[in-house]
């Protein structure tokens, strides 16, 4: 479970609740446009040690079937995962 992307709509006054509260975990935009470089996982080298997952500030990495999987919608390309990986299984590639 995590906040997920929804269709962006224009909110009218009638859609906004009377108090200053709203549904939690409501995403309408991605962060992928922030990147100039992106991490790419080498699936042969990755052993799923979870270090990149643990240190990703955006939580954009999950471990599925003992391999790191990156959510490119929300990765900002900071490169912490590449530095933290002891097996050099992540490489940063230029965005095109």
């Amino acid at each position: 479970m995590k906040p997920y992307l929804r269709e962006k709509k224009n909110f009218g006054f009638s859609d906004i609740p009377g108090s200053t509260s709203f549904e939690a975990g409501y995403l309408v935009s991605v962060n992928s446009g922030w990147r100039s470089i992106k991490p790419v996982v080498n699936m042969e080298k990755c052993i799923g040690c979870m270090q990149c997952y643990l240190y990703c500030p955006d939580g954009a990495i999950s471990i599925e079937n003992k391999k790191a999987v990156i959510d490119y919608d929300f990765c900002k390309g900071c490169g912490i995962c590449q530095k933290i990986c002891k097996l050099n299984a992540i490489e940063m590639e230029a965005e095109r």
Partner: protein
Amino acid sequence: MTAKDLSKDEFFYGHKACAGCGGSLAVRNALKVIGKNAFAVLPAGCMSAVGFNFPQLCFANNAIISTFAGTASMLTGIEAGLRAKGATDFTAVGFAGDGGTADIGIQALSGAIDRNDNILYICYDNEAYMNTGIQKSGLTPFGAKTTTTPSGKNIHGNIRPKKNMFEIVSAHDIAYSATASIGYMEDFLNKVKKACEIRGTKYIHVIAPCPTGWGIPVSNTVEIAREIVDCGLWYLAEYENGEFTLNHDPKEFTGVVEYLKKQSRFRHLTDDDIQIIIQSRDAKWEKIRRDWRR
């Protein structure tokens, strides 16, 4: 606690923090330890600015922005309100920056500790008011260049040392307080977990580097957060039952000069300035090793 023990859920996701943000990493992982029953309070600061951009709302649990000075008092109110409604399984947790804790919010925090309210207060310390463009806070270290403590010919950045917030809080005889660094994540996770199981006021002070304000590459956040501990300018410790305990005692410190020169906020420092920093570190560690349990 290790990465395997963490909840797979993400409670702080899609936020607009800068790439490589240390504060968002602290908030993300603390919420993963606390779980879905966290009621988070965020005062003015980076984490509220990047987490609540209507309609982009990045917290998956209950979260609210408080007044700048009122993190701890709002936590008190939330805890009392939930208890009055009969809730039992919840954690009222606050995430305030260094300015919101050591300067603006210190009165409300002190009051909450005095009442021993059952709340968890986490201070993510990036050593200046980063959200408004890097102004000096009470937790900015000696020599650091900020927009309000510029470096010139006569004055080399901040002329005052960092407030000792961990010991100020502990001096209240708080139920539990601890220091941590996002570079030593398992240690931080363990302390959050331990704090959740203790009744009373809990305070965790976590160093969370800010690439923008510290002048480091965005990929270096975690490395520099390790190095500040390794070179002895930060320490991992706990306070409980009236006693200080040092959790990590480096046999040999790594170079302070190397640590400082990696950051553009310290690059102007002269050898004399660096000597002052090294001397104050050594004096601090002498006291720690003499008085604290190890």
